[in-house]
């Protein structure tokens, strides 16, 4: 029932007076479409945010737009070769993605794994994580391309609720002034490279670790570069195996990880110094494969002192807790690598001190960037998506303005409380394992062995990482 019918109730003079007030505001708001939510950045986390908002019943009818600077990633057929960039998706992230995208992912390709073994190069200490009796999956290894393609497919099917614009680079943001009734437009204004200007009540910045949204807002960010790069590749195993274990070994130069992709192939993530990474890229295939195998199997970094101390400690612990601990397994050996799959990228840590501003929220790597050693980067982002979606849905059901600070503050508080301890832990791990010095090695050896013997503690760790 339109407002004009309401007005017909009233006397005309009053009506005329009220209409003139309306017109002033109307004219200034004609300029550009006003969206309810614009998400800037169509990577894994940005696309997941768009999907998640589009599927929310309380947000039905809202105008949602996803802006992606790159091309649309369509995948009609899953390519034969695996791609190098993969992520470890925790069960709760899988739940989030089960807004339709997870089905596409499982149809295409993903590899669940049931156990994770982490051990030290400088000692015998090791720790294994698994769910009880290896019944359930711990997590899934999925190629990043597949995640994005599945989300894109899902977005295609909900084009009524969510619009997506590809090849739309943002060149400028204009921020609204906080709540005072000036004659200015109260929305965030987004100017694209093609000259179009859009307005939105809420801008979600999902534009990666070098986020333009974060930069333009001037949000102070704690960040540093690790002097490390990660080398990624697709490995062919020597022989087919029930490949459901993720392996990670801490070398003094950095952790090397082998993540299962299929029964015959695994993904390599080797974090090491910039120089070593470049050398690795230059090696021919055979030498590279040798380097990988030796990194996983070689014991030259172990000193006698540590070995003795380690086995003594382990002996003591096993008399106290005879049933705890787990046998050491050896990772599969590598025979070759996939063609043209060796890539390297620099590693760093970053954390935005604020995740939100008036009418803006940051999610994913734009808010926090971590070392890949714990496989948590994507999961933290998906956690942001789940939290923000739930808060926006509740706000919409209460008739609130989506860009209002109240629920954005709740998002920031909840996610910082979760993300910060995780990031600190990951950074600590990285520093702890970056050294050869005997006291530190001793400390971490004993610590790791003790943790391995405490199933309750390990369960807590898994639970925290899967949240």
């Amino acid at each position, binding site marked *: 029932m339109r407002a004009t019918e309401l007005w017909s*109730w009233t006397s005309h003079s009053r009506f005329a007076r*009220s209409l003139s007030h309306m017109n002033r505001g109307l004219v200034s708001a004609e300029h550009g479409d006003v969206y*309810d939510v614009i998400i800037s950045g169509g990577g894994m986390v940005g696309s997941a945010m768009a999907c998640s908002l589009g599927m929310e019943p309380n947000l039905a009818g809202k105008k949602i737009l996803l802006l992606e600077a790159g091309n649309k990633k369509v995948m009609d057929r899953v390519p034969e070769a695996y791609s190098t960039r993969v992520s470890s998706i925790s069960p709760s992230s899988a739940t989030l993605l089960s807004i339709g995208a997870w089905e596409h992912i499982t149809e295409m390709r993903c590899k669940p794994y049931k156990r994770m073994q982490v051990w030290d190069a400088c000692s015998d200490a090791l720790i294994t994580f698994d769910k009880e009796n290896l019944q359930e999956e711990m997590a899934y290894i999925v190629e990043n391309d597949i995640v994005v393609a599945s989300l894109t497919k899902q977005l295609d099917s909900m084009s009524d609720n969510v619009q997506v614009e590809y090849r739309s680079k943002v060149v400028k943001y204009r921020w609204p002034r906080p709540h*005072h009734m000036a004659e200015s437009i109260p929305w965030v204004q987004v100017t694209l490279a093609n000259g179009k200007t859009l307005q939105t009540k809420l801008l979600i910045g999902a534009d990666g670790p070098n986020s333009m949204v974060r930069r333009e807002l001037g949000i102070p960010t704690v960040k540093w570069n690790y002097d490390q790069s990660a080398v990624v590749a697709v490995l062919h195993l020597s022989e087919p195996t029930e490949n459901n274990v993720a392996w990670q070994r801490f070398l003094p130069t950095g952790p090397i990880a082998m993540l299962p992709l299929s029964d015959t192939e695994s993904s390599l993530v080797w974090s090491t110094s910039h120089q070593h990474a470049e050398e690795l890229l230059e090696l021919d295939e055979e030498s590279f494969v040798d380097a990988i195998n030796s990194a996983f199997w070689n014991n030259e970094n172990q000193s006698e002192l540590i070995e003795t101390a380690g086995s003594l400690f382990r002996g003591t612990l096993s008399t106290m807790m005879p049933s705890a601990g787990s046998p050491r397994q050896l990772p599969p050996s590598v025979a070759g690598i996939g063609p043209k799959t060796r890539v390297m990228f620099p590693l760093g840590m970053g954390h935005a001190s604020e995740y939100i501003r008036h009418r803006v929220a940051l999610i994913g790597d734009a808010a926090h960037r971590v070392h890949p050693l714990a496989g948590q980067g994507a999961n933290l982002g998906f956690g942001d998506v789940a939290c923000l979606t739930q808060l926006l849905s509740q706000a919409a*059901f*209460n*008739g609130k303005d989506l860009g209002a600070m109240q629920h954005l503050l709740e998002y920031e508080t909840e996610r910082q409380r979760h993300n910060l301890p995780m990031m600190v832990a990951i950074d600590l791990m990285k520093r702890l394992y970056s050294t050869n010095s005997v006291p530190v090695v001793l400390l971490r050896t004993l610590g790791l062995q003790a943790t391995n013997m405490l199933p309750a503690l390990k369960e807590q760790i898994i639970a925290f990482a899967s949240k």
Partner: protein
Amino acid sequence: MYCRKVGRPLLGLCGPGRSYSRAAVCRQRALWLRRSQHQALSRHNSTRSPSQSTVDPDEVKRFQSLASKWWDEQGEFAALHAMNDLRVPFIRDNLLNVHRAHHPGKPLAGLRILDVGCGGGLLTEPLGRLGANVLGIDPVENSIGTAQLHASYDPDLRDRVAYQACTLEELSADGAEEQEPVADRFDAVVASEVVEHLADLETFAFCCSHVLKPGGSLFITTINKTNLSYALGIVVAEQLLHIVPSGTHDWEKFISPVDLERLLESHGFSVQCVQGMLYNPVSGGWSWTNSTAINYALHAVKPRDSLQPDRAEESCPHPEDHAAATHS
């Protein structure tokens, strides 16, 4: 209530000025009551000139000067902004009980709501966002201007929210003149933080009944008349902490839930539930509570066709599921 800054503006028929003693005000009120009861009994006709002479010019002036501050969420009206966390779900859930939601995302679509004493539109806009067609009225023109300007930027609200500078009486009188059909009346009337500024509640109740459809809902939030509300709402808030400007509230105008219920029932309403509200000045948030000693919210229903209302004695749906504080 101690942190309620400046309350809602007047709505018709306010007592003439604040400098009277309590006894004088009581006498005045009794006079008004008798007079208006007489009017209510006789046929309501448009020769009762409603208009500006019944509105207290001091109050209007005070609210006019604050008109630009309505939308500053941390400013004078912060507590009213925060109160939306309680009153929007209260209205929404009670209306959803009667009118099943058909549009996901717009649960109140198709409903017409009147927001009496809307001020800057703090409550009008959320109701509009939930899909209802809302008319906000307020005698203070500057507030209406502020409300219209704020709503005009949002294309979502432009079609659904309208404002008018008038009093409930004037609106109701207009309706009587044109003899509008039942379909043009409202599904719900909301009078939040308004009733404590009126001296003549009889006329208010009468007008509400007149503009509501049969079976329509009336939502009121206001302050109880107790020693506690005097101590906290007037002494602490106004005189000690100066959270609310001195003289904003007149304790005499507060009304207890029992009296309000009696009044509404005498006009044919059936009170569905009453629930206490509590403000926490430290956190700046409101919560539901069992005690109606200070603030409370009330939901009443106009019966269909002057028979017994068909929704008798339902439990009051509100987010926290507390037992309704009762009308004994």
